């Protein structure tokens, strides 16, 4: 645990019980393998259990790391926490909403207002400038052009890219693109920030800069980040290890 984490941990222990942003209980996610037999299909298809009884809660101001080998269920858990998917069984609440009960539209609204996502491959829109990319979620929120512009400019300045606002993703380095993606994830002031291998495409130095950003953000947000990378997981307050869809052992 880094020294900054230790400071944050001390502060948290001193505080009264902090707000639970995301919580799941006995979470199960099964996928059906194959495409079915059409009209005359034989019916039962083999299922794969990607998550098997995972329980977890994430509080504001906490960074939770998720580690595990490929196929362990990391991405599945992140997708469920981001309300991109719904569980087969178990309880899942994000920002007070029962995800299982939400329609697709309701889940989109939940993501828009409460969840920010950062991907390994940035997923920026290549035709748009850095500022337009950051302002993208605010389009769906119905903010005015002036408001969007001001907010995006401010966020880009916060992540150290104030001078690169008009550059397109293709004109930015990997680290800069990831910082734009983080700024975009923060645009709607989400309660929960989810990052999937945020340093996976970056060199060590650039990855460190991005992790510093996450550490700074950890004060006000609940952060869940999945990674294979130990230095990345080192910024987490606790790390959950997944194997075959189950939580292994105690939190680190």
């Amino acid at each position, binding site marked *: 645990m880094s020294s900054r984490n230790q400071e944050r941990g001390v502060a948290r222990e001193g505080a009264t019980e902090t707000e639970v942003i995301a919580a799941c209980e006995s979470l199960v996610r099964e996928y059906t393998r194959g495409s079915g037999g059409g009209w005359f299909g034989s019916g039962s298809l083999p299922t794969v259990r990607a998550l098997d009884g995972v329980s977890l809660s994430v509080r504001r101001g906490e960074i939770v790391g998720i580690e595990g080998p490929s196929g362990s269920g990391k*991405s599945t858990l992140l*997708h469920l926490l*981001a309300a*991109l*998917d719904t569980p087969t069984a178990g309880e899942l609440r994000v920002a007070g909403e029962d995800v299982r009960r939400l329609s*697709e*539209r309701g889940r*989109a*609204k*939940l*993501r*828009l*207002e409460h*969840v920010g*996502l950062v*991907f390994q491959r940035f*997923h*920026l*829109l*290549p*035709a*748009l400038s850095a500022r*337009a990319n950051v302002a*993208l*979620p605010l*389009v*769906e*929120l*119905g*903010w*005015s*052009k002036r408001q*969007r512009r001001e907010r995006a400019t401010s966020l880009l300045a916060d992540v150290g890219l104030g001078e690169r606002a008009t550059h397109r993703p293709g004109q930015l380095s990997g680290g800069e693109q990831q910082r734009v993606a983080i700024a*975009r994830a923060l645009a*709607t002031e989400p309660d929960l920030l989810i990052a999937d291998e945020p340093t996976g495409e970056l060199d060590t130095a650039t990855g460190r800069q991005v992790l510093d950003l996450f550490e700074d953000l950890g004060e006000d947000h609940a952060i869940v980040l999945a990674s294979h990378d130990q230095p990345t997981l080192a910024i987490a307050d606790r790390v959950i290890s997944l194997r075959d869809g189950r939580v292994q052992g105690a939190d680190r």
Partner: protein
Amino acid sequence: MSLPGARWLRRRRALVGLAVHRVVGRLRSSPQRVVLSVLGVALAVALVVAVTGVALGLTAESVVQNDDTDFWVVPEQSTAESVAVSSGGVKLGDVHAVSERIERDERVDYATPVALSVVPVTDRTTGETEYVLAAGIIPREGQELFGLSTTPLAPGDPHYANGSYDGPWTGEAVVNDAAASITNSSEGEELQVARTGTNRSFRVLNVSQGEAGFGFGSAPIAVVHLSELQSATGLAESDQADQILVSTNDPAVRSDLASLYPHTTVVTKRGLSAQQASTSNLPLAVGLSALLSALVVGVLFIATLMGLEVSADRATLGTLATLGFASRSRSLLIGCETLVVAVVGGLVGVAVGAGSIGVVNRVVGAQFGIAEVAVFDPLLVPYGLVVAAVVGVVGSVYPIYLGRRTDVLEVLSE
């Protein structure tokens, strides 16, 4: 406006702006599919503009050709018949009196009824029956009808004799080459009307190169006195004719002409009037065929190419979904992008179509000596853009369907 309403509007406007931005961005980064989509719609719109221009040309020429004429008073017909060849259609009655009344208006240079009838005449050599389009008018010096000068005909309409139809029968006719050819007649020779119950005949005063100008080539035409054609064809009863030609320099005359008869329409020399568009089957059919072809071609083109575009852009759609863009917003974005591409294609298509009309007119003029076979009416610009917009709206259904099928989790795992 309520706050949620304002927000809804801002969101829609921003999504449209985003769509435009993305199309422009694609034109910069990977323009192939967008350019092909634009060209596909442009091709369809150019087709519809050019062919409709030709149809308009046919329609504009389908009224009786007379350069001095500014208005045609024609019956409102329930069937879409050409004004020029509506010999069996609805007739105007009491036309001599009405024409005289119109001519008394000092703003009017002249007015003449025109009766049109396909008349069977006997071939002088073979004895067989041939058909000519006979046009009956009240001739005056220097007047032309179907390109035939009426000067050789005795002025006025002597046989009419104030409605008694017992005045002197002049039997005078001016015919064009085609009529002279099929009846084997020449100047000074008789044309015998081969109709049961009449032994009327006309004498050819002059043969000249008249042109019906219907766009169907040269039709056999004979111009005769109105009352004599009426007598020979049974139109004398109620003094019937097909239309009244009015020459004037005052556009205000039109409203007076409109009140002459109930259920008539006043047609101007040219223009995209409903009457003109509806009075000929052929131009209408040509225009409709072009429209349908353009819609089918345009929709198939843009649906296929924008569908490919959506498939190639699944990562972006998946990203928007992860950011919280609702499925409806993503569909709107795809629809707007398709519409933007279609409208750009429409603009290009209108320009190309207008150019095609010019080229067609030049080529036809050079090859066949016809002055203008197609007309570019300014209304073709909005027409082409509306066609493009319809292509865009209908063509967006398939890309939107593909967009909605995008599996976000699959995209993220790629």
